[in-house]
């Protein structure tokens, strides 16, 4: 391969660093109305009275919106395909406010100062209600967070709002209880994972204007431009044909921008005032009023015989979706469906639980999407089992983990809120990943611990993980390739580059197939008027789904080129040979270059525009796999931890761009380490967010990372473009369990609650 599996610099990195306009707010109209949102100071309240008269009269105020002024139509902001597996339980503005930071009203004014002033003039009388803040007490709580009658599920997801249940699910293969009874060793533990903030660098941003055809043109920092168009249309009753959504460069998403945030209010302002409008979330709003990761309580039981053969796994999860049920069912299900198949040789397995509403910031999609939560519990429990059996945790995994050409019944049972899809592991290099990682970290010499003196201990820990490559039979990507005169191409894709480099790797796939170079493939992505459809950047779908679409489009283009060349050379198309630059035929003495052919097509003879479209949906979701190994140094007295090295060995099939794939893995590792070690969304007793800026919510800085060692297994997934699987999420899954296991190996205390801060470790040590 000449382009794929080569380290090509990101096609737009230079332009961005040089400071060219790139992001949503860079394209806001200079005279945009500034939209600001009045947010609830209460965790749960009903608006008894709202008076915006004074705000409306303030000079410079163009519009004030309260729940009396907006369409009342339940929808979900989740940004998923249709029908969504999330309940339609949100209104543009509602008479209830369900968390501190929920939307009460919006103003649009000529400048920020006036908008802020107007917010202060809105008089709101609240009936403050008892909030539900402890998710373990949410089910059947006397406060019902969603008492409204007009909300609904799109298909059965276990939606019971009257008992604060957003979703529920149960599945069982054989009889887990019976199987556990026959086990010689059983591990039973309860784990807690916390809310994590996405904390992408670019805040949620949207701006809108009307064009000369009176259509609504929206720029949005979104991961799902086509879903944004559909959801705005549904929620605001505007025909989809009147809306164009453009996704410029996005400054990080991690799932947080899969959903819609300011899009409804800004669209309404522009539709009502006919003026351009914009909204840039403050950092406080990003923390308080967008999304977090779903906190979970995970009860795990794992049973085995005394040789270490796993017999049964039982997993019950209570998940906290916060004020709205976005991604409630699916994130919770992924905690099982992308963790449990790793141990496919068990006799019996059960996964069940509930997702509950609380009066906190809504939880939503977040890189890992449940898998990181489930992984922490199951991969910690596997180490506990290894300890009890006195078996090396790597050996225990090797005895029980999934291997190439094997399957798990869970694939067929559990899908994204619906039934799943049976599939074999055509590529699974987990055995290599484990062995290679073991060598790279120096497990043999370092496991379990070394006392390095000065009351410090060094230890190692590990975990394995799997993710997916898109959602089978649901996620769809499409690509169009257009030939230009002078022999270069446009590649338009619905796929959404949010910083992961999809524009670059899709150009590489096209260039490889067209036997050309990346500079001859001009990429334009994510514009609902101009590019073909794509479900968006989520569920690790882009490389596999959108990449396959690009590959198919390129093959079609080659067929069109050959036909055109055959006409020019006056031979049969079957005889044409194309090497990316020129066409020849055994039936002709003459040849024609691509440049000459394209110029002939547009200027001289047989004039015709050549355009080829490919689209793809997966019939399976080949999982990327990885083994993660951590080496830490821990102070016995203070429990302070220094992370010395993190080794990742990843099977993502062919890495289309090895350096960018490495960036995906390492970015995931560091975000996962943040969750494992110190990141935590914190609330006051009244439900106010305490961690609402970069100082109260610390993310990893340059000083927190000592060494990352990242390698890829040789692997070729036949169903993927040039053998690729996806790689966007897999990196985030292993750090919590690997760190927890390393802490146990160092100090003999089992951490069951994230984040594993020195304070919590210290407390456990005191109790030991």
């Amino acid at each position: 391969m000449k382009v794929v599996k080569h380290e090509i610099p990101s096609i737009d990195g230079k332009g961005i660093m040089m400071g060219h306009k790139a992001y949503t707010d860079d394209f806001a109209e200079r005279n945009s109305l500034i939209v600001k949102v009045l947010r609830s100071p209460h965790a749960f309240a009903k608006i008894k009275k709202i008076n915006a008269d004074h705000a409306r009269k303030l000079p410079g105020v163009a519009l004030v919106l309260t729940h009396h002024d907006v369409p009342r139509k339940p929808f979900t902001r989740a940004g998923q395909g249709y029908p969504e597996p999330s309940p339609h339980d949100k209104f543009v503005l509602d008479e209830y406010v369900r968390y501190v930071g929920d939307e009460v009203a919006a103003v649009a004014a000529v400048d920020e100062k006036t908008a802020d002033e107007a917010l202060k003039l809105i008089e709101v009388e609240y009936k403050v209600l008892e909030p539900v803040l402890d998710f373990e007490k949410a089910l059947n709580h006397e406060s019902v967070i969603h008492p409204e009658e007009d909300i609904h599920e799109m298909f059965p997801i276990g939606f019971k709002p009257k008992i604060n249940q957003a979703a529920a699910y149960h599945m069982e293969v054989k009889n887990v209880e019976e199987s556990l009874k026959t086990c010689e060793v059983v591990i039973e533990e309860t784990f807690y994972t916390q809310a994590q903030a996405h904390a992408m660098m670019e805040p949620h941003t949207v701006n809108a204007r009307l064009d000369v055809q009176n259509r609504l043109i929206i720029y949005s920092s979104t991961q799902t431009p086509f879903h944004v168009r559909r959801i705005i249309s549904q929620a605001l009753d505007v025909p989809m044909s009147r809306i164009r959504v453009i996704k410029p460069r996005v400054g990080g998403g991690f799932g947080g921008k899969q959903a819609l945030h300011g899009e409804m209010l800004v669209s309404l302002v522009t539709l009502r005032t006919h003026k351009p409008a914009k909204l840039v979330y403050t950092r406080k709003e990003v923390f308080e009023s967008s999304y977090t990761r779903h906190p979970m309580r995970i009860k795990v039981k794992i049973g085995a015989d005394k040789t270490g053969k796993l017999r049964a796994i039982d997993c019950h999860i209570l998940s906290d979706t916060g004020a709205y049920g976005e991604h409630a069912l699916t994130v919770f299900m992924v905690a099982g469906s992308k963790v449990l198949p790793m141990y496919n040789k068990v006799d019996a397995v059960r996964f069940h639980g509930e997702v509950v509403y609380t009066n906190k910031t809504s939880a939503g999609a977040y890189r890992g999407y449940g898998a990181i939560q489930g992984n922490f519990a199951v991969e910690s429990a596997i180490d506990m089992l290894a300890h009890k059996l006195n078996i090396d945790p790597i050996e225990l995994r090797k005895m029980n983990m999934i291997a190439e050409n094997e399957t798990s019944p869970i694939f067929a049972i559990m899908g994204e809120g619906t039934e799943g899809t049976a599939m074999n592991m055509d590529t699974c290099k987990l055995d290599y990943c484990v062995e290679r990682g073991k060598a790279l970290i120096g497990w043999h010499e370092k496991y379990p611990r070394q006392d390095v003196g000065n009351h410090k201990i060094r230890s190692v820990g590990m975990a394995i993980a799997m993710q997916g490559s898109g959602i089978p039979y649901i996620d769809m990507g499409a690509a169009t390739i257009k030939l230009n005169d002078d022999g270069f191409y446009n590649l338009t894709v619905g796929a959404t580059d949010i910083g992961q480099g999809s524009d670059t790797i899709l150009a590489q796939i096209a260039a490889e197939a067209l036997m050309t170079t990346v500079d001859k493939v001009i990429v334009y992505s994510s514009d609902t008027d101009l590019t073909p459809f794509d479900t968006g950047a989520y569920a690790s779908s882009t490389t596999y789904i959108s990449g396959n679409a690009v590959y198919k489009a390129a093959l079609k283009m080659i067929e069109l080129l050959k036909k055109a060349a055959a006409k020019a050379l006056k031979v049969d198309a079957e005889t044409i040979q194309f090497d990316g630059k020129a066409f020849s035929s055994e039936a002709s003495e003459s040849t024609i270059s691509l440049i000459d052919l394209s110029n002939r097509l547009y200027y001289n003879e047989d004039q015709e525009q050549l355009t080829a479209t490919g689209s793809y949906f997966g019939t399976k979701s080949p999982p990327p796999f990885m083994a993660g190994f951590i080496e830490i140094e821990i102070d016995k007295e203070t429990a302070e931890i220094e992370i010395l090295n993190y080794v990742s060995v990843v099977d993502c099939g062919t890495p289309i761009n090895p350096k960018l794939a490495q960036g995906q893995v390492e970015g995931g590792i560091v975000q996962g380490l943040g969750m494992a070690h110190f990141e935590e969304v914190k609330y006051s007793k009244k439900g106010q967010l305490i961690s609402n800026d970069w100082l109260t919510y610390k993310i990893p800085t340059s000083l927190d990372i000592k060494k990352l060692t990242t390698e890829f297994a040789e692997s070729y997934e036949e169903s993927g473009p040039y053998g690729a699987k996806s790689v966007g999420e897999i990196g985030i899954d292993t750090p919590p369990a690997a760190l927890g296991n390393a802490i146990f190996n160092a100090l003999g205390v089992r951490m069951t609650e994230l984040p594993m801060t020195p304070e919590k470790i210290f407390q456990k040590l005191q109790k030991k």
Partner: protein
Amino acid sequence: MIVKLTLNHQEKRFDVDASETLLETLRNHDVMSVKKGCDASSCGTCTVLVDGKPMLSCSLLTVRLQNKHIITVDGIHDEVEKISTYFGLEGADQCGFCNPGMALSIYALKQMLSNPSSEDIKTFLVGNLCRCSGYQAQFKAIKRYLGDPL
């Protein structure tokens, strides 16, 4: 209020409110390379050089910058081009929102420290947050830019 300052080697006169930040002034005048990542001087995306020193434009009032020399990436084009080339070669580009600010800090680092150690580099850049990368590829790129052997 009228403020006279030098922006990227050119004399400028800005008519600003007393409460206007340099970040607002720059973006209002189409300097889009300075980004607003937060509003509390803690993320580094709005970094500019003020008389050669990296500072956060979200917490500088424009009226107080009379006669100062402000540099954004547009003012050190050739150096930023070099930095971005190394970023590209090392695969250090992800969402890019932090990159212009980081480039200015990297340039300042090169001006202010000679032969910095890895720890010096990390400490100098601790105020430029990045949520995408894990920082490793960036360090490799920065070391190449600083002329260190890899």
